């Protein structure tokens, strides 16, 4: 992740809720939905607050215990993954949050995980190409 690039949630296409530390994300365009583990949710919430990318790794490193390089590379890969899924987009409008970096009682760092579910996509498929009757109203395609 280039620390000069900043990101935001791809609203209104993507909606999300974080409940009890777990994020549930829905993409209205593709019909996919996603869940994040706790580390992924933490990063996601930082992006939601439009935190500068350069600050995300610092925040995660202060909250979780682990090797710095491993944390940084994991976060980079995670950001690439959610960017590829169009869950986030580039943003010029970012904020610097003033809250202090947490350094006490760190939990062990686990790789941020994104789980994708595509079983609902068929509900968003357009109907197959259809013909219209003599009054212009469509009929379902013969194969459907």
């Amino acid at each position, binding site marked *: 992740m280039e620390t000069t690039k900043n990101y935001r949630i791809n609203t*209104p296409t993507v909606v999300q*809720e974080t409940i*009890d530390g777990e994020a*549930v994300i829905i993409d209205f365009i593709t019909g996919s939905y996603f869940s994040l583990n706790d580390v992924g949710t933490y990063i996601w919430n930082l992006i939601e607050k439009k935190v500068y990318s350069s600050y995300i790794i610092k925040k995660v490193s202060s909250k979780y215990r682990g090797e710095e390089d491993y944390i940084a590379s994991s976060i980079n890969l995670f950001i690439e993954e959610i960017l590829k899924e169009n869950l986030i987009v580039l943003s010029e409008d970012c904020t610097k949050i003033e809250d202090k970096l947490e350094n006490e009682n760190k939990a062990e760092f686990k790789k941020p995980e994104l789980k994708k579910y595509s*079983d609902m996509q068929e509900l968003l*498929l357009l*109907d197959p190409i259809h013909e219209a009757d003599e009054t212009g*109203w*469509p009929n*379902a395609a013969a194969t459907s």
Partner: protein
Amino acid sequence: MKPVGPMPLQQARQPDEFFEKLLNIFHKAEKNVKTTPEYYYKIAGYTICLKFAGTALIPHITQALEHLKIQKCNDVNLTIYLWDNKSTKTTIPSPPWSNYDYKERGMINGFNNNKFATTYDINARMLSMLNKEAKLALYWTKDVKQFPYYTRASPLRDILYWWSKTNKLQMLHSASVGVPQGGVLLVGKGGSGKSTTAISCINSNFSYAGDDYCLMTSDPIPMIYSLYNSAKLNFDSIKRFPNALNCVNNKNFAKNNEKAVLFIHKLKSVKISSSFPVKALLLPCVSNKKETSIEKISSATGLQALAPSSIFQLPGATQDDFLNISNLVRKTPSYVLKLGSDFDSIPYKISELIKRI
């Protein structure tokens, strides 16, 4: 890139004009058939009136709503006009949109805005259109014989979804059973066991509130409101409930490779409830044990089971739907219902849970 700015005036007027045209055709249909039955229902405390031109559509529409039927009433919140071309000997004009304007879930480009909501179901060949301001809706088809069997189970779903939003109700893809003190939502994707679980409860002290869709409010406390008394079961499931076979609507379902559509109101001694407080979300899943068990799961898992399958089925669903559902899940504990082979234990376990919460 699409042009931005105000819609051309001609295009902006189209839904209004089209709605007016169709309403006039409905009135012509009424005159042609001279039989214009009216049906009234109480849904979530609101009165809805169905005005039919002729009787052809009645068996397809009213059975699933029978349990909510009331006497004629003046304080109507929504009036739906229903007719078909064939039996009323009417025709309607060609659609004022092109083939390229059909979007996902049957939505019509240019005919869904703050005032109107419109879908055309290509498979069922039926048009649903709601004027939100006037609280009037149109439901038209060319020939009722073209209706797929499943349309009887959840009739007028699109219109009732849009209408419910105007009254701050949220439609859910969920089954629901309960007792007066409270009930549960059975959530999850198709095939997870929602319908089977709901039907297994109907011979116990539970009331049935629905199989596929229901309405919900979450403030001040989560409440569920019944919409349809129907249930759809596949062949393997319905074999487990021989009594239910008597109220199957599509008798040749097995031969036609369909699900059995049942109308629960036809089962004597089964209670159907119009509403109750929601105590829990249950995610059914089949286990390989005899006894049914229940385990707590995270609210995020509950949200994941309920929200996508609800939202992606509802035409025009937005972030508001997701937020409403999230609000419900925040207030309601979620559990997995591990279904055992002993079906008699299912209602007992659910009843125990409701008492505990």
